[in-house]
């Protein structure tokens, strides 16, 4: 299928990749993305393994947190930086190599054509990824929880692949520094009345992405963090 993103769209899109100790993979991820999307910003979240140097060598712009503040904080930093760099569209992309860069065009297209303000990647639509059983169960639970709390009818709440317009990024203000940001983004989409659409994407479950990903028990920590963020917002 032809990539629907125009050269103008690619040039005005900033891909934000939050990374913490991803020195082993970040270079390959950045190179893969930069084949078609020139503006990549890696937010090095206080890594100690040379993540920043590897990302810079691969051609990314690097924004470095002096100390580790969590993925949510890194994402917000990347969005702030992208906005100040004049991006018209912003994409969030995970650093562990689980996303497929060829799907970026399809993700950005509905935002670039004005059909929605935020496009959310979903692994549960037409494109079936090989999802481990326990993770599938947890993700389904998160979907039900999100539907109950924010009212958004989404099928995948914890997918790191998202595209948004500049106007949407200006309204999103992540306060959850750690993993609860995924639910917080959905809350803010509902709160600000942003138009959203889900786009089918694949998720690659490699040994590395599984090792770096959330453990099953972390789900309870994320839930607690999310509830506290809502209370203290």
């Amino acid at each position: 299928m032809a990539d629907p993103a125009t050269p103008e769209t690619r040039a005005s899109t900033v891909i934000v990749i939050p990374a913490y100790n991803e020195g082993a993979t970040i270079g390959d991820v950045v190179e893969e993305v930069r084949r078609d999307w020139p503006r990549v910003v890696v937010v090095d979240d206080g890594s100690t393994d040379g993540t920043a140097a590897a990302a810079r060598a691969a051609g990314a712009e690097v924004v470095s947190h002096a100390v580790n503040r969590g993925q949510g904080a890194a994402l917000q930093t990347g969005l702030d930086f992208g906005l100040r760099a004049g991006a018209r569209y912003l994409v969030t992309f995970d650093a562990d190599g689980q996303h497929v860069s060829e799907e970026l065009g399809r993700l950005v297209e509905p935002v670039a054509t004005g059909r929605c303000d935020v496009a959310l990647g979903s692994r549960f639509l037409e494109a079936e990824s090989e999802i481990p059983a326990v993770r599938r169960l947890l993700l389904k639970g998160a979907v039900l929880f999100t539907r109950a709390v924010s009212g958004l009818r989404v099928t995948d709440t914890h997918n790191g692949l998202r595209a948004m317009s500049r106007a949407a990024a200006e309204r999103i203000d992540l306060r959850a520094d750690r993993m609860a940001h995924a639910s917080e983004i959905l809350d803010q989409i509902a709160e600000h009345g942003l138009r959203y659409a889900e786009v089918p994407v694949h998720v690659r479950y490699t040994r590395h992405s599984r090792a770096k990903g959330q453990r099953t028990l972390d789900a309870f920590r994320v839930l607690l963090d999310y509830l506290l963020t809502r209370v203290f917002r």
Partner: protein
Amino acid sequence: MNAFQILGILLSGCFALLIVLGVFRRRIRPLPGAAWTSLWVAAGVAIARPQLTVVVAQALGIQRGADLIFYVAILAMFVGFFLTYVRLRRLDEGLTAVVRRLAVAEARHRIEETAQHEPRPGDRAAPAD
């Protein structure tokens, strides 16, 4: 009055006085200052006249004064935990904001420096030695 009571009253009085002084020197805000002073005065009174705690306890439907003090201490502990947690969250948010501002400023500075050192169209190359 036994030695513990004398020591307890003296300590409570000193703490209450320090807080009042702190309020007058504008180092402690009036409302928290009043709350802390009341707390230390109440502690002093309870130590000096333990039977008063029994009167207050029975008025609240609790049998013994010691139980009343125990319940109040537990409650105060939870309030303390909560206030500390709120403060910690605010500190955390502040830290993230500082780290973010620094990170973005540094990155922008690096970009501007790189742009300054890049040759512009029309610039002549430096003559070779």
